[in-house]
């Protein structure tokens, strides 16, 4: 794994505009950054990222089975009591799931270490599945990449295939919903909806704020149609907390991601996985936080923190690092500190996409800090044929 500086495509901004990639620059700061790319060998991708992702995904699903049968685990994950049976039922019915993203610390040496599962509302999807793909094709055509270069990225094909597979299991009408004013979230659901349409699924779009409630507790769209299935790019735990949430279990509304994903998008899954698979090369030691002082070598994360918010890090050398955020209260976990490796002052975090149950691609976000936050930039990657390196090193 190397960071390779490269020439940008002169027309990439026009290309971004042509495909609706409106958030390549966020608040005047670059988000899409193609002045460099990460180069991997095929072995690194297949052995160190793809295979562990599929294995961890299977371990996570097995853990759901255990959690739904355990009041104690539900308690540890702070699942509100009124939602527990509903969540368990959604798992027993195997209500269909679509996608998730695992975040890994990986630098080409040693096993990738799982930071967390983003299994409810993962974003950075469009840039990974589409714009990164287009970058590779363009740079191959321009001769900016070695011939035969490839990319670990069949996210698009897997999404269309997944929608096609679950199509008959999706209640209609089917709507995609995100927060109205979030450009990035709206971009993500627009892309997912695009993929659903390509799979032949008729579907609409709706702002989360526009969802209505009928007198008998069913959820409606703006035309008073009862929503059959809702893809919501909105955290399940927030839905639970908000005023309409209490109606979810009896509303008949199907959700994607389904309610059982609340057990995996929760950082409490990390200590449970560690307990069940202690010493697994891709897992970091983790435990539920007792609220005491954070010892050296540990990181504290709230169960529900997103975008690297409210993380406390106490490194082996005694340095401490804290990020701000809205998740000040509520239970936390501890995870062994395993800082990201720096590449020219940047700290890349590997987002490994799992669509259905298939590990099918990565997207890399790098921040200038050890904690990857919403200030991170998306940097493309390529799989480079390694034959020339032996000659160089000889």
């Amino acid at each position, binding site marked *: 794994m190397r960071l390779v500086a490269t020439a940008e495509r002169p027309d990439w901004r026009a290309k971004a505009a042509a495909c609706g990639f409106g958030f390549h620059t966020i608040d005047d700061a670059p988000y899409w950054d193609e002045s460099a790319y990460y180069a991997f060998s095929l072995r690194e991708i297949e052995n160190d990222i793809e295979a562990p992702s599929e294995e961890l995904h299977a371990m996570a699903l097995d853990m759901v089975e255990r959690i739904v049968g355990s009041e104690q685990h539900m308690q540890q994950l702070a699942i509100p009591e009124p939602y527990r049976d509903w969540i368990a039922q959604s798992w027993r019915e195997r209500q269909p799931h679509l996608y998730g993203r695992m975040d890994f610390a990986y630098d080409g040496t040693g096993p990738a270490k799982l930071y967390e599962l983003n299994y409810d509302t993962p974003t950075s999807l469009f840039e990974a599945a*589409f714009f990164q793909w287009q970058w590779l094709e363009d740079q191959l055509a321009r001769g900016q990449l070695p011939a035969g270069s490839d990319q670990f990225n069949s996210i698009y094909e897997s999404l269309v295939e997944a929608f096609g597979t679950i199509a008959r299991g999706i209640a209609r009408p089917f709507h995609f919903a995100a927060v109205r004013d979030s450009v990035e979230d709206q971009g993500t659901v627009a892309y997912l909806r695009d993929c659903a349409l390509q799979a032949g699924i008729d579907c609409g779009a709706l702002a989360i704020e526009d969802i209505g409630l009928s007198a008998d507790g069913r959820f409606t769209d703006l035309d008073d149609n009862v929503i059959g299935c809702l893809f919501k790019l909105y955290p399940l735990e927030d839905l639970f907390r908000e005023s309409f949430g209490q109606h979810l279990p009896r509303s008949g509304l199907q959700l994607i991601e389904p309610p059982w994903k609340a057990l995996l998008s929760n950082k409490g899954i990390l200590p449970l996985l560690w307990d069940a698979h202690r010493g697994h090369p891709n897992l970091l030691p983790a435990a539920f936080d007792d609220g005491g002082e954070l010892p050296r070598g540990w990181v504290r994360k709230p169960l529900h923190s997103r975008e690297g918010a409210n993380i406390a890090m106490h490194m082996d050398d005694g340095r401490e690092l804290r990020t701000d955020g809205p998740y000040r209260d509520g239970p936390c976990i501890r995870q062994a500190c395993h800082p990201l490796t720096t590449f020219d002052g940047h700290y890349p975090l590997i987002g490994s996409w799992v669509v259905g149950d298939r590990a099918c691609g990565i997207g890399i976000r790098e921040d200038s800090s050890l904690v990857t936050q919403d200030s991170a930039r998306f940097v493309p990657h390529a799989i480079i044929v390694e034959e020339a390196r032996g000659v160089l090193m000889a």
Partner: protein
Amino acid sequence: MKRSRTAALLLMSTAPLLLTACDRSESASREGLYTSVEACVAQTNDSNTCQQAFAKAQQDAVATAPRFANREACEASYGKEKCAERNDGASHSFFGPLMTGFFLSQMMSRNGVAANGFNSAPAFRDSGGGWQRPATGAGGVYRGGAGTAMVPVNATPNRAVTVSRSGFGTSGSSRGIGG
């Protein structure tokens, strides 16, 4: 190759997308949900196919029915005495609902005669009286495994008068949502 062969956009692209035309033949299909072979024969007048469809559905029912760790959990979803203990052959025992009906679908030619061959699937009735069938397509991007997802059979859209809105989204304005 580890990447998609193509990456098309339908809605998001401002450029017109070339869609591959797909010639669909003019055939229609017929599908019924029957609670007995007799009901199936009464509708289709084809006792041979009905019997085969019933037998195949019954065979598939064990593999595709939802799986529960104990009888109580199964009966909570499917009603009292509607569940049976099963075994997957690898000494894992579990509980699943009993098949309460079956689907038969056949392609029909233009003159209204059923073509050779058929598809059938088991149907289950939940404790609320709704019918369910196993979702198709285990394998591929999804792993098969412990039971198949169930699909409600009656998916006709219905309408309801909305009495309030904006009960969701109150956490959204203060921060980014995605991860």
